[in-house]
């Protein structure tokens, strides 16, 4: 079943490419691609619980090729996981090598037609987002066809039908559910030419998405067609941007919500303000029963997601806050809010000094959703599960993050940044570790950058996290020497230690002697043009690696790793 469409794709691509070859001189056919691999040789290291796969070596590799010829485009991606890196991917396992993605596309008089695989997003993705985060192993590419049509300037229509990528076994394996979706959007500033629309814009959009999956359940009558709709309104001026989106999903009993028949809903509101030197962002959202997967029995929360529910928290870039306690959205129910201010103190002002100062303040909080469990009075109410309203938080705080960053050039060749974070993290809910106490952590980070010459510089980071829960304290030191534009050398050590007691209540239950472990790692990189090579050797702490809104747990490892990327 799987081989047939891929054979078709290969034929398409081959035909396309062969047809292009003779015409290239006049028409200017384009061929581009990229390659990327992450490989690691694993050593055993019992001190950190490093997992060594039987093959001792893991490598993920991807190669993309895209051919464009006027309005025609075709592409494919080859993938290899022999075996994949430990802990990769986030969802169902990948194995073997083969074609992971192939498509052909053309545009004619405002109509864009895509057949094969494609990615798509409606609005913010509350009811549909098909996307790829290769380094996490998240890929829910659609496989079918898509039409995008602009019948009139400012009016954008999209329609699609397809299956979704579920896993990889010598080629993409699609899931069992069919997704059908339609979206319409009108952008007034594009539609109308007036004095008002030259400075203001109103965008109105709406989507409808439906999934089909056969009901084979012997006991329950499950809905085979499940629909969801969303509406959005966006008002934009040169300084303001106000965005509201609401989504509703009809009854969708599935493994994630305990097979209840309650409808789901989601609402997000955000407002941003900005003018030169200052930017402000505020946002709130509320999700209720919004897991939307094209297989109601999807094995993991990472597989076959039709929609995307992003966490409303800052994504940190420093190692400790980014990888120890990042927040993940709770699609079954959460109420979250975030506010952020960016400000530049002008040069010459008391706080700006000679070279200016930049300040960023961020606050994010997430609570559970207040729900009223429906009893077993009768079968109908029991099957609905619970009752809940949007934006009514429960008493349980899942996450809170207060952080302040001050960045200042203190001399022409010296820049310093000081960051403070205070974190509350419900590790039981967010990481699914029942019984573990909530983590309260304080972090201080100092970063410095010094330029020796126009081409050579050193950057360092000193990070400290203190907590009396989970793994205790962490200290991190990093130094990076760069020789622009081709070379860099970096060394980092992370030190896990506990200072507060002779013994330590690990997981809130087991009393253990605190272990003091160093995680040293060194890296060398060479970059030239579209090629980038990086080699690392050392210990890698278990952590959570996030890109965009999704995170993957990376196990502890010890060994040599190599990353190569190339674009042509």
């Amino acid at each position, binding site marked *: 079943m799987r081989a047939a469409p891929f054979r078709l794709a290969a034929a398409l691509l081959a035909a396309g490419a062969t047809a292009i070859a003779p015409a290239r001189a006049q028409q200017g056919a384009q061929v*581009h691609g990229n390659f990327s691999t992450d490989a690691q040789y694993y050593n055993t290291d019992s001190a950190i619980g490093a997992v060594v796969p039987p093959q001792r070596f893991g490598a993920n590799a991807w190669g993309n090729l895209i051919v464009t010829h006027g309005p025609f485009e075709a592409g494919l991606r080859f993938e290899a996981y022999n075996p994949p890196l430990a802990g990769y991917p986030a969802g169902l396992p990948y194995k073997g090598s083969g074609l992971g993605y192939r498509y052909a596309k053309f545009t004619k008089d405002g109509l864009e037609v895509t057949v094969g695989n494609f990615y798509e*997003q409606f609005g913010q993705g509350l009811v549909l987002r098909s996307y790829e985060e290769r380094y996490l192993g998240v890929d829910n590419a659609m496989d079918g066809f898509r039409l995008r049509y602009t019948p009139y300037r400012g009016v954008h229509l999209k329609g699609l039908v397809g299956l979704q990528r579920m896993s990889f076994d010598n080629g993409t394996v699609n899931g069992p559910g069919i997704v059908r979706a339609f979206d319409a959007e009108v952008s007034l500033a594009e539609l109308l030419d007036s004095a008002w629309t030259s400075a203001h814009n109103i965008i109105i959009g709406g989507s409808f998405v439906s999934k089909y999956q056969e009901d084979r359940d012997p006991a329950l009558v499950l809905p085979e067609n499940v629909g969801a709709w969303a509406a959005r309104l966006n008002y934009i001026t040169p300084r303001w941007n106000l965005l509201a989106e609401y989504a509703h999903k009809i009854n969708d009993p599935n493994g994630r919500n305990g097979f209840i028949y309650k409808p789901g809903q989601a609402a997000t509101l955000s407002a941003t303000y900005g003018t030169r030197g200052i930017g402000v962002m505020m946002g709130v959202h509320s999700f209720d029963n919004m897991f939307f997967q094209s297989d109601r029995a999807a094995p993991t929360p990472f597989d076959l997601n039709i929609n995307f529910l*992003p966490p409303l928290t*800052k994504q940190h870039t420093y190692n400790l806050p980014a990888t120890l306690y990042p927040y993940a959205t709770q699609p079954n129910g959460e109420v979250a809010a975030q506010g952020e201010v960016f400000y530049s103190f002008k040069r010459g002002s008391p706080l700006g000094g000679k070279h200016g100062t930049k300040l960023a303040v961020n606050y994010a909080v997430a609570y559970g959703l207040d729900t009223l469990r429906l009893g077993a009075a009768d079968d109908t109410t029991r099957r609905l599960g619970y009752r809940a309203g949007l934006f009514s938080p429960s008493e349980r705080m899942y996450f809170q993050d207060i952080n302040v960053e001050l960045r200042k050039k203190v001399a022409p060749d010296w820049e310093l940044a000081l960051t403070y974070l205070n974190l509350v993290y419900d590790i039981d809910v967010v990481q699914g570790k029942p019984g573990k106490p909530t983590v309260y952590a304080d972090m201080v980070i100092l970063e410095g950058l010094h330029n020796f010459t126009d081409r050579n510089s050193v950057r360092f980071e000193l990070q400290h996290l203190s907590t009396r829960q989970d793994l205790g304290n962490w200290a991190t030191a990093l130094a990076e020497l760069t020789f622009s*534009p081709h070379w860099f050398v970096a060394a980092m050590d992370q030190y896990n230690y506990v200072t507060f007691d002779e013994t330590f209540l690990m997981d809130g239950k087991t009393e253990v002697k605190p272990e003091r472990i160093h995680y040293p790692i060194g890296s060398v990189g060479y970059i030239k043009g579209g090629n980038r090579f990086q080699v690392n050797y050392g210990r890698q702490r278990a952590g959570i690696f996030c890109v*965009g809104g999704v995170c993957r747990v990376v196990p502890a490892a010890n060994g040599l790793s190599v990353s190569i990327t190339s674009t042509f």
Partner: protein
Amino acid sequence: MTMRYLIAAGLAALVSTAALAQGRMPAVQLQTMEGKRTDTRAFVENDGKPVIVNFWATWCAPCKRELNAIAEVYDQWQAETGVKLVAVSIDDPRSVARVAPYVNGQGWEYDVLLDPNGELKRALNVNNVPHTFLLDGKGDIVWQHNNYEPGDEKALYRKVREVAGQ
């Protein structure tokens, strides 16, 4: 076996064209911070002057270092060569709302475009950020770099001057 032959034939044809192919900007529709759609082929128009297309994200520290470093000399670059920098944010729905306040807070004067689902990123075969492309006055990609280290902006500017015929 048929599939293998077809792929082999396809690849052979691809390779034979690749030798002559020039790097062009693919046609993709992106959103401006004003919520208007713009075609990539329109934003690379710069009256025959060079254009820098830089992929970045609010969660990418080296990207922000690079764009902040260029921001300090951007006036001078523009005055000397007429170069234009287009900063393409690949922030997804999680952080795309932070792009405009961040850009304002930094006081950047770049053309900032949003690519929240990675359409242009895929079309240009970008693996990770930061990734910088330099386009000549005809819109052909003449140079690229997939990294940022302090000082890289000077190497980039040497290329810009070269392309601008200086």
